[in-house]
């Protein structure tokens, strides 16, 4: 009986805190994305910039580790039984990717352009007892081009 109460409390706390954290994070993400709008991060490798103008070429990467809350974990567990899109994890992945990109841009804040941007995600803390994701890590990497003024 106590176990059931513990689980219910965890789910309630997870839902409340998780929703709050998510909203705050999205606000921060959108704010920073507007700020970095002028710095292009593209996946193409060749851009038509005069090579002579390039001052510096640097590898930049940004990574973010986002954890899941208990409510989302339970929801995903139920989803695992019945199948279908695990909507509770969608926001997780979205936030992790965008945060990683933003941090990458932050590492090259006065670059002209970041080319060859790649994003990779991986799961962390996938213990055998709890087969659902513990945390999600996203790494965004690219080549930043700094131009001469």
């Amino acid at each position, binding site marked *: 009986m106590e176990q059931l109460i513990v689980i219910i409390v965890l789910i309630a706390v997870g*839902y409340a805190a998780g929703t709050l954290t998510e909203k705050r994070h999205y606000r921060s993400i*959108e704010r920073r*994305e*507007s700020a970095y*709008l*002028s710095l*292009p991060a593209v996946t193409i490798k060749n*851009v*038509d910039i005069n090579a002579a103008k390039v001052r510096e070429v640097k590898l930049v990467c940004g990574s973010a580790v986002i954890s899941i809350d208990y*409510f*989302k974990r*339970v*929801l995903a567990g*139920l*989803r695992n*039984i*019945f199948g279908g*899109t695990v*909507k*509770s994890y*969608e*926001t997780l*992945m*979205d936030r992790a990717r965008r945060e990683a990109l933003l941090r990458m841009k932050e590492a090259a804040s006065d670059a002209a352009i970041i080319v060859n941007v790649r994003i990779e995600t991986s799961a962390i803390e996938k213990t055998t007892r709890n087969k659902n994701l513990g945390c999600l890590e996203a790494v965004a990497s690219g080549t930043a081009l700094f131009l001469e003024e």
Partner: protein
Amino acid sequence: MKFTPRMPESNVNVTPTSPLWEFFVLLSAAMGIIVGIYLLLGFAVDVFVPRIPIGIEQNMAGSFINATPLLNDSPEKVQEIQVLLNTLQTQCAQLPYHFSIYLQKNPQANAVALPGGNIILFSGLLDRIESETELSFVLSHEMGHFASRDHLRVLGRALIFMALSAAAFGPGSSVGDLLAQSLNMTELGFSRKQETRADDFALNVLHCRYGHVGGAIDLIDKLTTDKDAELMGHYFSTHPQSKERISHIKAYSRSHNFSIAPIQTPKPEKLPSSRG
């Protein structure tokens, strides 16, 4: 190439959804399935358990007998009782079981019927039995429970799982052992109807073997007046049920023309007590 910085209008990667609603729907579906399985199992117990084939029951037998603490310290006694049981079965109780007798040191006056044809007699019961006809009544009563598969019915839903695992994996499966340990065998309470049916079966066997059914009433009478009332198991207690039991036995015997011989004639054979 022209670069136009622009924020995206919508986010295609996130589905607008209400997680609470989704949680409620999935949880209800899962609960519904569990309740459905529970009801189905209850139905299966009533319909299928009495029809479990003897072969599968034999496969389960090992798990139960291994989970019970036994004390076979008098193998000659066990042998005697086994011989009596075999005689009764061959002559008067044609059942597709191979019965085995086990003794357990226990002051209770009780006996337990385990799946697979294993009968455990408690020393408390044997101490109070004084004649062969009384012992035959006890053995035939247990055989009667086996005949109606009562010992399977009372185990309920857990038995379905055990039978399935015994059918799939054969004898000695760990699932069976786990479940057998959790089923408390000594507290098996048979219903009045089941007890009456077992009594009738025993009466028929007694009549067939001895020509009279005196042993039955002797035993019940003796134990209902025993001062150690709290040691009586499901067999005998000072509960009014025993009076109804005796009157039912008398009525049944009358209707079937069984003779209830008085205790004096013929002189019953004395059995050595389990302490001797």
